[in-house]
């Protein structure tokens, strides 16, 4: 195989993950030496049609038009990568699925005329198509992104392990925010890979990388209520954020319908 043809696609997103893919300035020119970026609207004018070897998809599906685009992407790309939490789980835009309003009510809040608004509940892209690899995080972790590219070039499977953020936090010898500072940290149910970024900076983990492989949301929800003093609604908000669509996190919400 020559240089693999790589494409970057944007669905509903903030562009932060695409930007992270460009934020590799010291080695950007080297990376361009080994892959051929054939489609990247944000970066180039000359964008070529498929087929592509690797397609990075940023963002969640929020409209029928995007769904069509996504299906075409699947047909055109040998490998599809969900790039970032929006593409993996629905991310921040998926909050609208849980806010207790109907689709029409949500639309009416933002738009006074509803003539042309066709939107739908927000899910990650694997709700609709097969996905080969996932890059989690809001935004993605640059190292994981580079590991994935290298692995794909070598034809090996990247080894991502999704044990909890607590594991990385302990390795960093952080003082536990949950136990010692009574902060509602989501680290114990959230997948690692970020190097326990937030707790290392005194900020509770907000769960941006989605559920860990050994996620026990019910138990953490109980800790949040009993030890931290969160209300049921607060607990629901915690789990219905970046990855509220996942069965693992929705367990944390319990029987509470919405906040």
């Amino acid at each position, binding site marked *: 195989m020559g240089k693999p043809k790589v494409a970057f696609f*944007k669905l*509903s*997103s*903030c*562009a*932060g*993950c*695409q*930007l*992270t893919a*460009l*934020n590799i*300035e*010291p080695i*950007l*020119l080297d990376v*361009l030496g080994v892959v051929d*970026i054939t489609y990247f*609207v*944000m*970066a*180039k*004018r*000359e*964008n070529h049609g498929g087929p592509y070897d690797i397609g990075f998809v940023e963002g969640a599906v*929020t*409209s029928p038009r*995007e769904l069509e685009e996504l299906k075409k992407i699947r047909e055109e790309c040998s490998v599809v990568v969900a790039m970032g939490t929006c593409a993996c789980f629905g*991310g*921040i*835009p998926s*909050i*609208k699925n849980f*806010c*207790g*309003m109907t689709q029409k*009510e*949500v*639309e009416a*809040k*933002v*738009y*006074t*005329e509803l*003539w042309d608004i066709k*939107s739908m509940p*927000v899910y990650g892209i694997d709700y609709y198509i097969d996905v080969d690899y996932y890059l989690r995080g*809001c*935004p993605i972790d*640059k190292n994981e992104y580079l590991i994935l590219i290298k692995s794909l070039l070598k034809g090996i499977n990247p080894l991502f392990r999704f044990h909890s953020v607590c594991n990385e936090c302990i390795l960093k010898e952080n003082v536990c925010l949950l136990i010692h500072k009574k902060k509602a940290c989501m680290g114990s149910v959230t997948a690692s890979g970020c190097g326990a*970024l*937030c707790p290392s*900076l*005194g*900020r509770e983990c907000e769960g941006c990388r989605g559920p860990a492989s050994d996620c026990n949301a019910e138990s953490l929800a109980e800790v949040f209520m009993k030890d931290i003093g969160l209300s049921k609604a*607060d607990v629901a*908000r915690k789990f219905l*954020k970046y990855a509220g669509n996942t069965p693992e996190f929705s367990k944390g919400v319990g029987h509470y319908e*919405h*906040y």
Partner: protein
Amino acid sequence: MSTTRNIRVDYIARTEGDGAFDVLIDSNGIVKKASWNVWEPPRFFEAFLIGRKAEEIPEFVQRICGICPHSHHIASLRAIERAMDVKVSNQTVLLRELLHYSDWIMSHSLHIYYLAAPDFLGYESVIAMAGNSDLLPIVENALKIKRLGNDMIVVLSGQEIQNKTSVIGGFTSVPSVTDLRKLQDQLKKMKEFAYDTVKLTNTLASQSPYKDLSRRCEHVALQDVGKYAINEGRLVSTMGLDVPEWDYPKYMIEKHVPECNCKHSIIKDRDSFLVGPLARVNLNFNTLSIDAQKAAKEIGFTTPCYNPFMSIVARSIELVHAIDASIALIDEIGTPVFERPRFSYKAGKSFAATEAPRGTCCHGGQIDKYGVVKKWDIVAPTARNVYNLNKDFEEFIPKLLDLSDEDLTLKCEVMIRNYDPCQSCATHSLKVRLQRE
């Protein structure tokens, strides 16, 4: 020209997001329609923020846009703090300014070198520019200066793009003085390149036909006391507007236009307006850093400048300023001390504005006594500028009819790029409809 010309471009290369423009010129050479449309489906931020907690708003709204996350983040933080009566320390004010200037350095250099320069120089991308050995050193420096913006964000907030440390009341952790000094050294090193950027962009924007195109319109920006406005100020304009920032909903309003079924952003009782670097440089020239003013004078830049193609020059002048301001802020901050962010919920209502790299960014709403958001309003700069851009189209396209379709299309793209549009920002508050005949 004797035939009808219909120029439609389905996506605009090198802009963030998904937009398109449509120009229809009839057989008499009259522009029948010239509009920029945004396709990107809305993410309904204003709807799903309702019912969330106050402290989540700044966390969520920075995810509106990965290029100017802190513009949204800081505007919402300040609106909430004003609504709940939270006071922050002087150190927090300074760190927030530095954080926002890092967005400016990243976003301005991304715009100038990655997005706009290839247009002016006739390359398909910055990657293609790197293939020309004459341009390679410029590309390498461009990568470095953008990297510097990112490095600043990492030092201040833990990660590029979405920040992790800035919360209501302050920061969960502060940078070390050593890291700040390292950044300061880098800033000093990049200063000369920023200075040269002003000259370079001026050469680009002084090409024909750009140099002769200007259109007087109202320019609006924040204005601060004794310093260049970035995170707060009064809302002022070239036509005499001068009101507190929190009154923006009363003065920057949207007018529904039945013919095109779209909304136009106007200043109350007047017309379209422009926000962004050109407006800021025009209104706040005297508070730019000394060297930024010097760079402007050296190329003969005079205010007020109503040529929108000079926006890229204004952006470069601001790049020099952002570097100077950051160097000074690091001195002023000295050795940061950790101060635990504190706040308590209180019912209230307020609005605030910041200057995003691409213009005034407004946030505000209402919070109840439990800290639950009842209503939230977001108007990002691109939404403000769309109507003004359509007016540029109407004014300039008739002057460019001699050009080939290909060349005219490129010129339209440059006109759009003057505004450094960000469609992610634009859409959740824009009501634009794509019309097909």
